[in-house]
């Protein structure tokens, strides 16, 4: 049995100063945002806000300076992020690039790719989307079929991606595509590609390249994710990220890295805050007990998540710990709306009612997705079971 540990870590002194700066920034640029909008958490997107964050040096914070980064510690990034998320700031536009795609390019990209695709991200001007899932490939990601066929000077892409968050606004997609079939090993023959969707100035590149983005409306009536169809779309050889046919290992590393950040337990924080506000107005022992229990979970999850950040910072590989944080975090985020309903005996509302009722109405629905995105609960628990030596 692999053991796991979550030792307390001390944040560097610079973190406290940064926290103060972020709070000042939020007081200026986020104060007017309504609770319901704040509840969007990292799905809330505002390119202007992203640009302002870029100006402050809060995108690509830990990346090398030569790519527009700021070489700050991952603890500082953690502090900045948690302040943004607790405030419900609209960090969604640059979210994927900052968290997932940038680190991928730093790990596996060519010098040329880094020069071209990282600096605009740090300015809050270039947004990414991730094309992994397909209609027939969800949890079983290795079964993806969308194909990139080698042609002169590059590849032709055919097939479709689905659930692609932000594909309608993104400038770039990082796609996982099949480049060859190996009957003995389906993990072999997958390759990651950088696909341009839009120029920096917003000019569309999809239409003339056989790429169609179709909105998929969520059950909340919102448009966040899409279906993306490729018909003979062309990408040059220079679009390959990392090793041709070796994309699987890269993707696994990428996903493991994104399992334990503050976004993994803060998605429903706005409802906790609304519950506290409501209890201040009319306190009940039952309400106190419910909020106290949630805050006990919150404090514990933060401790675990910061501890994993410490391990990542020290170059360790806390894959098991990260999965545990994500599993516990999603359960926590999901149970909050139901607890709020029990405590306050209210009907969840949409488009009318108090902040509490509306945030509750939004999160009851939206939180369904928190244990699906980024690896389902069952898949995560399978990873944990493997860590325990059961598989």
């Amino acid at each position, binding site marked *: *049995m692999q053991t*796991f*540990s*979550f*030792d*307390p870590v*001390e*944040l560097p002194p610079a*973190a*406290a100063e940064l*926290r103060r700066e972020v709070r000042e920034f939020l007081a200026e640029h986020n104060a007017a945002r309504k609770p319901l909008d704040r509840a969007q958490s990292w799905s809330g997107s505002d390119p202007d806000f992203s640009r302002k964050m870029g100006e402050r040096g809060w995108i690509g914070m830990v990346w090398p300076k030569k790519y527009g980064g700021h070489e700050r510690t991952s603890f500082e990034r953690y*502090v900045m992020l*948690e*302040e943004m998320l*607790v405030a419900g700031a609209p960090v969604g536009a640059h979210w994927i690039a900052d968290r997932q795609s940038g680190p991928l390019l730093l790990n596996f990209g060519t010098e040329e790719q880094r020069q071209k695709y990282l600096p605009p991200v740090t300015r809050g001007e270039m947004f990414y989307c991730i094309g992994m899932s397909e209609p027939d490939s969800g949890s079983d990601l290795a079964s993806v079929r969308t194909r990139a066929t080698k042609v002169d000077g590059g590849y032709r892409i055919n097939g479709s991606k689905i659930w692609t968050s932000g594909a309608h606004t993104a400038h770039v997609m990082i796609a996982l595509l099949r480049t060859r079939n190996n009957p003995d090993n389906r993990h072999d023959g997958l390759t990651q590609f950088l696909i341009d969707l839009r120029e920096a100035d917003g000019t569309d590149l999809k239409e003339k390249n056989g790429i169609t983005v179709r909105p998929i409306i969520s059950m909340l009536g919102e448009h966040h994710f899409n279906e993306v169809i490729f018909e003979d779309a062309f990408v040059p050889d220079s679009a390959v990220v990392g090793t041709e046919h070796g994309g699987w290992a890269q993707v696994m590393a990428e996903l493991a890295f994104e399992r334990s950040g503050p976004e993994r337990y803060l998605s429903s924080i706005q409802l*906790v*805050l*609304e519950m*506290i*506000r409501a*209890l*201040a107005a009319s*306190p009940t*022992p039952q*309400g*106190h*007990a*419910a*909020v*106290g*229990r949630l*805050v*006990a*979970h*919150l*404090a*514990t*999850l*933060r*401790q*675990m998540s910061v*501890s994993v950040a410490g391990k990542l910072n020290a170059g360790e590989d806390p894959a098991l*710990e990260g999965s*545990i944080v994500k*599993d*516990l975090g999603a359960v926590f985020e999901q149970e909050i709306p139901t607890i709020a309903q029990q405590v306050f005996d209210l009907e969840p509302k949409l488009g009318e009612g108090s902040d509490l009722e509306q945030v509750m109405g939004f999160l009851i629905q939206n939180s369904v997705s928190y244990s699906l995105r980024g690896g389902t609960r*069952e898949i*995560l*628990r*399978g990873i*944990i*079971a493997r*860590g*325990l*030596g*059961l*598989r």
Partner: protein
Amino acid sequence: MLADTVNRLFEDLMTTELLIAAEQGEWPAALWHAVEENGLTMPLVSEAHGGVGCGWLDARVVLHGAGRYSAPIPLAETILASWLLDRAGIEPPHGPMSIAGGSDGAPLRLTREPDGWRVDGECPRVPWGGQVDHVVVVAPAEGAVRVGLVAKGEFNITSSQNMAREPRDTLRFDNAPVNVAGTIDNLPADAVTLFGALIRTAQIGGALERALHESVLYANDRVQFGKPIGKFQAVQQNLAQLADEVAAVGAAGSSACAAVDLALQSGVLDDAWFRIAAGKARAGEAAGKAASIAHQAHGAFGFTYEHILHFSTRRLWSWRAEYGTGERWAEALGRRVVEIGADNLWEVMTAND
């Protein structure tokens, strides 16, 4: 290295026979002797008083070990008692100790007589109250919360036990002589409950780890339908959730201990209250969930007295109730959070960075 000492010692000495004998009332003298010899009873005592001079974060390793191995001795209580004495300026005596603060709404009473201090009152469910050499009492007197040392023989004992058959005795003090020294800055009047909750949280973390360990061993060993039951996805998913709970309580316990260490530096013990409350609330919830999963995985074998699982799970059920149930701590924490206010929550959440 403290962890190594703890694990080696308990690995060598903690047998099922010893646990059974202890449940029948036998004092495990050899185990106690070994624990004391190795300095495990005084991790928090200053070197000037013959201790090790560590902080709570280090002491947690011992508390966790005591929980993991179900050690049927008042080790956690002695660690807490000797810490209180040391802080109050009394050199802790050798031998097992326990702690007593009174009962809900009726703290013990300390009075100063011409020839020294006296203590009066009753305290239910004092761990090993009838077996220890000394009891450390905490009570308000003359405008401060004071710590005193009472020797065995100075109080009346009514024996009782918890569900894990650990002694939980009612002690009655009638004008009992007590050695009271200095005061501890900002020591709260309910210090026994507060720090009692802290030691139980750390012990629960250990007992949970053991329940997980036993469950994984069992699931890999027990064969049904032609394969180890651990190969069934339903069993895996349950044990993953058990691991989640173990991880959470481990983190909550270290966080609470680290908070006490920080609070001791800043001199404001109240700063640690938040983390201790959160820790006991989290541990109390985990204890029930984890015990249920562990027993489910063990089938009927885990329901027998012969199997060792119940030594851990009965402790989990008892400890989650001792020094405040998780529900009670959650309510207190919730009240505090509402006082703090939504806009300041994150300030408090990050105060110990």
